[in-house]
């Protein structure tokens, strides 16, 4: 089970959480190393593709089109999946999804489930609901296993244990798998996981998964993975339960030709990930005999209703934005207080909370645009961040900041007021300036500046003062 789950409702604000995270030197080192490696790999495989921008544009249009016709495609998926022997359930929110999954697991007669990594199941905190119902969930993805055994929390969408290095992982395995002699080479660690989990794959009767894509045209489900634990959970158990946000649906099988080129290159910097599985409903001669899909809303329809923010739903969970983000690079994922971290987390998490929580996340960005540059489906994350900032400001109403902003706004609307403010600024700061003309401390809201920086004293003459003088002197 995870430790105290990442919960946007109770997480500290980003500035606070970031400060704490940045105090962990090992974490910062691990995050830097990991994001550097993935970014380099991604750059190499993207450079190979002369049609990369065309793929991105097609990906964007496919996803946009899907959202514009979401009800149509969900109904089509449901009909086709059902026709092929699957059972489709709907859940309005996380609570309903949890209840449904728990009762389906119980109905399968198993008190254990093997799980494939699914951020959706983390989002709804499924594991604690299963445990509470007497069902033991077993994470089978290596990173999720590390997280589970280490009683930790995921910090990255694709590589959830990226914040751990090999010594830390070895320590966890030594302790929990009872392997005191375990080496710390990555190979040794993977072998230990293999043996530990194999026994479970061959025995446990019920599997729980997420879904990368739900294919409306065929009723099929697509799962993208690297280790083979996905294939194990999808084919060996008798019962398989997949939970997916309603934003996972895509129109047609053919659309995979675009998305399966964009996703692996963006996520792990590979031309193709080792295993991708596509299956439809139930095939009694191959795989689970019982298959359920839980389609979950959990505030996605709220995002859909906000036209400017709707593009958030286009996300295909590649995490390229996390790897590119200079803020994430400094803080790692936990600082975002949510299973969705980095740039996508900054826009998705507050919206999934219907803007009641995580209001500091839209500000956890310098708006540098590196995320937009790498997003395989061209989500304009900076644009959505600004849009959400407007929502947060409206919610907050009157505050010291709002007052200051309104005042600045009035100043900028008049040449006379602007020039007066310039003169006033010079007067106000002059007591703060040292002999060399530099200021080392600023009060109040501006104090954040002087934490790490000096500020040069305002020049005696503004540009427009100079221009005017020049005019008078005939240039």
């Amino acid at each position: 089970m995870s430790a105290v789950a990442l919960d946007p409702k109770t997480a500290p604000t980003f500035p606070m959480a970031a400060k704490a995270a940045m105090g962990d030197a090992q974490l910062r080192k691990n995050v830097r190393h990991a994001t550097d490696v993935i970014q380099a790999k991604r750059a190499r495989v993207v450079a190979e593709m002369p049609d990369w921008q065309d793929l991105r544009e097609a990906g964007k249009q496919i996803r946009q089109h899907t959202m514009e016709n979401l009800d149509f495609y969900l109904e089509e998926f449901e009909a086709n999946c059902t026709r092929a022997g699957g059972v489709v359930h709907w859940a309005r929110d996380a609570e309903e999804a949890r209840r449904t999954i728990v009762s389906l697991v119980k109905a399968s007669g198993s008190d254990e489930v093997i799980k494939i990594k699914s951020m959706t199941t983390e989002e709804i905190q499924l594991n604690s609901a299963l445990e509470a119902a007497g069902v033991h969930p077993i994470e089978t993805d290596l990173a999720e296993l590390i997280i589970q055994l280490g009683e930790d929390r995921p910090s990255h969408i694709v590589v959830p244990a990226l914040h751990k290095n090999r010594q830390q992982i070895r320590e966890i395995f030594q302790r929990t798998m009872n392997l005191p002699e375990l080496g710390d080479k990555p190979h040794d660690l993977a072998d230990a996981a293999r043996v530990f989990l194999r026994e479970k794959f061959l025995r446990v009767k019920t599997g729980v998964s997420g879904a990368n894509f739900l294919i409306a045209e065929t009723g099929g489900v697509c799962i993208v993975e690297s280790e083979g634990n996905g294939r194990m959970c999808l084919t060996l158990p008798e019962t398989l339960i997949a939970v997916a946000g309603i934003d996972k649906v895509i129109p047609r099988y053919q659309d995979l030709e675009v998305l399966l080129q964009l996703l692996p290159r963006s996520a792990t910097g590979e031309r193709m990930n080792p295993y991708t599985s596509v299956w439809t409903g139930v095939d009694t001669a191959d795989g689970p005999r019982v298959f359920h899909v839980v389609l979950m809303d959990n505030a996605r329809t709220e995002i859909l209703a906000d036209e400017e923010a709707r593009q958030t739903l286009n996300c295909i969970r590649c995490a390229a934005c996390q790897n590119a983000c200079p803020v994430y690079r400094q803080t790692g994922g936990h600082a975002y207080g949510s299973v969705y971290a980095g740039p996508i987390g900054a826009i998705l998490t507050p919206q999934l909370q219907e803007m009641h929580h995580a209001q500091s996340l839209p500000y956890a960005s310098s708006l540098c645009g590196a995320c937009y540059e790498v997003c395989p489906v061209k989500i304009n994350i900076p644009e959505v961040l600004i849009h959400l900032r407007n929502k947060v400001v409206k919610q907050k109403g009157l505050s010291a900041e709002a007052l200051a902003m309104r005042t600045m706004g009035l100043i900028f609307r008049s040449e006379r007021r602007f020039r007066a403010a310039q003169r006033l600024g010079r007067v106000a700061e002059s007591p703060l300036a040292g002999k060399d003309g530099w200021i080392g401390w600023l009060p109040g809201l501006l104090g954040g500046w002087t934490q790490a920086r000096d500020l040069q004293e305002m020049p005696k003459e503004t540009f427009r003062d100079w221009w005017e003088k020049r005019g008078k002197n005939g240039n």
Partner: protein
Amino acid sequence: MSCVGEIYSLLNFVSGSLFSLEVGLRVSLFITCYNDTLFPETGKAVVRVLERLGHTVEFPTGQTCCGQMHYNTGYQAEAMPLLERFVTQFRGAEAVVVPSSSCVAMIRDHYPKMALAIGKKELIADVEELLPKVFEFSEFLTKRLGLEDVGAFYPHRVTYHASCHGLRNLELGDGPVRLLKAVRGIDLVELQGLEQCCGFGGTFAVKNADVSAAMLADKMAAVLETKAEACTACDNSCLMHIQGGLHRQKTGVRTVHLAEILAGDEGVAQ
């Protein structure tokens, strides 16, 4: 760019020198609120370069701010009147030059949408007409005038930081570096991670001061590694942040806006 403009650019590129077929333009300067107040030398440098190239600089005195700070921080409503003010001030300009890529990105990326939101037909038309004439300073030189050599002299070791808005929003590409390479006497050294954000981000620098400082530390480390005397960029916002850190750490390294390097010539005190 129009076909005629492309021919001009080609000829300029071929002649590769001060000789520009575009002379005697009336260039309106949008100095930006923070350059006006904190970095007047940058404005003076822009005027110097443009006049050296044979153009006339105009300065509508009623100008104030493009509205970026408000817009980006979530105070969209307060930014709207600033758009209207900008349009009023620069209506009829032949070209508007701005020594700040983030301000141009604000104007280019957001003004059309904002004008639609305000909903006044004339305003929407004015914005549509004005926008193609608005240029960041370095792109005015390289793309509009087709120049690389502007007759500059700056005998110092310099490194260039690519401000995010200029890099990603305006797609300045290697324009600024080509301008720098053509500066006589310059010792230009490449900055490791020049495309990495410096951590300023407007109000981000204050609201997320710790992360901003951490990003700054990385940028400063890269600058110091080049052993440059000065770090340059197209935005004084980045430079103010980087200089603030370099000064706090007592490194002796300074920052200088690209325009001030290009304004340098034999006669000017460095």
